[in-house]
């Protein structure tokens, strides 16, 4: 099985949950479909959803919750 990365389209701060009280969008082992939200990027006073562009199964998150990231940074690894 090949693995691929889902990259962040934006620089900013990465969040894995829609809000601090809610569970993460995705966890290890979850399946991912194109268009699924996998996290949020905070930049310029707003939050932007990051959506998967391919289908697969989450192997691991590479970026941590609240981590500062650059555009193009790998956020998670999926098995396709």
């Amino acid at each position: 099985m090949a693995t691929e990365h889902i990259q962040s389209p934006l620089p900013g701060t990465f969040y894995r949950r829609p809000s601090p009280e809610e569970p993460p969008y995705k966890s290890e082992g979850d399946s991912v479909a194109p268009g699924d939200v996998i996290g949020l990027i905070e930049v310029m006073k707003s939050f932007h959803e990051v959506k998967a562009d391919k289908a697969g199964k989450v192997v691991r998150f590479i970026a941590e919750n609240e981590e500062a990231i650059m555009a193009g940074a790998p956020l998670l690894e999926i098995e396709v």
Partner: protein
Amino acid sequence: MGIKVHNPGLATTIQDLGRPGYFHLGIPISGAMDRFAMRAANMLVGNDEGAAGLEAVFMGPELEFTSDCTVAVCGADMPIKLDGEERAGWSSIAVKAGQVLSFDFLKTGARIYIAVSGGITVPEYLGSRSTYAIGALGGVDGRPIAAGDDLPTGGDAGPGDGRGVPENLRRAPGNPAELRVLPGLYWHRITDQAGRNFFEDEWKVAPEADRMGYRFRGGRPMEFVERKQPFGAGSDPSNIVDGCYSYGSIQVPGGTEPIVLHRDAVSGGGYFMLGTVISADMDLIGQLQPHTPSKFVKVDMETALQARRDRHALLDQVRAALD
């Protein structure tokens, strides 16, 4: 003759060199955050330097051109594609009707400037086509561009391929970014120690930074010189009796996070300003990504004026190279 917007990117706006002359009425100067890059892009496609183009932040748009034209992209390093084929930045690109311009992930810098021959010809508002989104002025109905928009252009084919800004004449911030600051008008409000700390500390661009202001965090909190707050000033020691803000002025609400006011800033208010980023370095701020390490460097008026002359000389060199 125009541009069809397939995908707008993130908060992509029409900008020119701005709308000076109304700041005293609360209407900001607006215009490109990196005016050097905007001017260079316009020169490459044969436009007046003040023609309107697009400013895209962090993420490029996808645009289809409906007539033959020349396009140039200057500013941040973000791979440029014409019908999927990679093209160079800081260079003129001949485009045929129906071709699509798109971008890959941002590498360095923050904002790209896309100029098209003939310029984008939306109506002017108070002498400028710049978009001031908060005030819903200029651009397309006062807002960032959106998918489905048809942007009118001046429509000549332009000079085509083969023009480029030599690499040594391009300008980008270092890492850490160094921003030169002239202390004042309210420098006296902070202690000597706080003033030294401000220039010693390494700051980082906060993710909130936008066209109104660039916020920095990570340095030590500031101590203020004690005083009885004057009538009309708020109770926090960072408050003053309301005053005029200038482009580039640095306010520090609560003494914790400096904010450098930029092109879409408010024109006045009640926060003290410890100094002003010199005009020659304001373009660099427009190219800072969130979390970029940054240092403030103290300069005097003579240095600031020399830096302004140097910047003008650099622009002259670009003009000469493209003449």
